[in-house]
């Protein structure tokens, strides 16, 4: 399509080009601020479900998130943090997706079911010792592609459900799409839990493969060099 995408095909680029690195490291403070201010907001009403009809599936009804996990001191402070930094998280996500699309990087990063399902299952089998050798892989294996693509889905879900909580009436069709205000609020929290789970797995696997950390800092070596 665009000639420069052909010239700089991802295969000839360093493992982590600078836009990916910048976006990745910006996510760290942004996600921490959003999670911690979000938990301070949750502390104002640590229940799920409308008044008088609490959801019976939610195991933490009435339990306030611990103080170390919260940012913003009080509800108004936390809301201002949350709505100020939500813009930067969203902009970072949009910039990342645009970069993936126009650089061609999506080809070696996104999970494409037809291409990657087999490799993801084989990698999983290797991790649980059902397989002796890891399957062949390029920059990422299928399981990594699935996990990283999953975070994009989580990011989109967090923004969309967050918009429902912010403007449930003005964005009425979005509210309906998520089954109403209270189910969007529950989903917003579930997305946070999923992000937290991903982060734990991500950090553990990076510690087991420290080379990837170096590449996310320096960009790594070009394949031909």
């Amino acid at each position, binding site marked *: 399509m665009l000639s420069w995408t052909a010239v700089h095909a991802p295969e000839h680029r360093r493992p982590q080009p600078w836009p990916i690195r910048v976006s990745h490291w910006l996510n760290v403070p942004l996600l921490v601020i959003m999670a911690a201010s979000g938990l301070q907001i949750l502390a104002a009403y640590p229940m799920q479900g*409308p008044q008088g009809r609490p959801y019976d599936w939610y195991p933490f009804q009435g339990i306030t998130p611990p103080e170390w996990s919260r940012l913003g001191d009080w509800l108004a402070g936390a*809301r*201002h943090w949350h709505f*100020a930094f939500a813009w930067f998280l969203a902009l970072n996500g949009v910039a990342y997706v645009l970069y993936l699309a126009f650089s061609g990087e999506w080809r070696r990063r996104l999970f494409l079911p037809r291409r990657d399902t087999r490799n993801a299952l084989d990698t999983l089998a290797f991790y649980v010792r059902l397989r002796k050798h890891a399957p062949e892989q390029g920059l990422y294996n299928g399981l990594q592609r699935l996990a990283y693509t999953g975070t994009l889905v989580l990011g989109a879900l967090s923004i969309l459900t967050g918009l429902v909580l912010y403007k449930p009436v003005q964005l009425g069709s979005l509210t309906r799409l998520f089954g109403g205000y209270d189910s969007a*609020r529950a989903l917003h929290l579930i997305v946070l839990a999923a992000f937290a789970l991903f982060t734990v797995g991500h950090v553990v696997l990076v510690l087991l493969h420290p080379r990837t950390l170096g590449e996310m800092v320096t960009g790594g070596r070009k394949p031909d060099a």
Partner: protein
Amino acid sequence: MRRLITRRTALLGAAALTTSACDSSRPREGFLGAMERFNARFQSALFDADQLAPELPPSEDTPPGAFPQYYISDTVPFAPAGWALKVGGLVQRPGVLSLEDLQRLPRTEYRIRHHCVEGWSAVASWHGVRLRDLAEHVGADPRAGYVEFRSFDSGYYSSWDRPSAFHAQTMLAYGMNGQPLLPAHGAPLRLYSAVKLGYKMVKYLTEVNFLPEPTGGYWEDRGYEWFAGV
């Protein structure tokens, strides 16, 4: 030495900048305050006067007794004897209206979801007079871009942008769930709306003023956002 001082000054400056930029106890100042003003413009641009909150069936009603009550006084405020609503500001016919006067104006009724700043929602039906009908009745001036609401609940008040105040689902409610409004829910008259968070809906009303400039609000003056649309 000179370099040391410069560095120390720079560090102190940076620390001062960070604290003043994002001070949770003063969230309407500094960087957070600038972002609030940006968000207020965003919310105002997003506001569509024709966007109505869906009317809900009675089955969605919050169970009896579970709809939260809210007042800042120590006990439920009761209306003073001879209560009447004072309407003033940029209007052709300022004056006072009794509850009977208000009930003679066109009546509106709806059952919609309530959104509290704390994150909970609740459902009740409300009846009363649309604020836009009251505005027409008193001849509110088009230059009145804001509406201020005052109460007998220990000085609780708020002020609204005109488009939100004139929304079809913004009313001065004198009834809830088919009954006259109870003191616990803001009797004799309270503001109710589909398009604002609960703390903007002033209960125990005494005054409605059509003004050219926004005033603050009880929670707004303490750091909560002023626009607070939903």
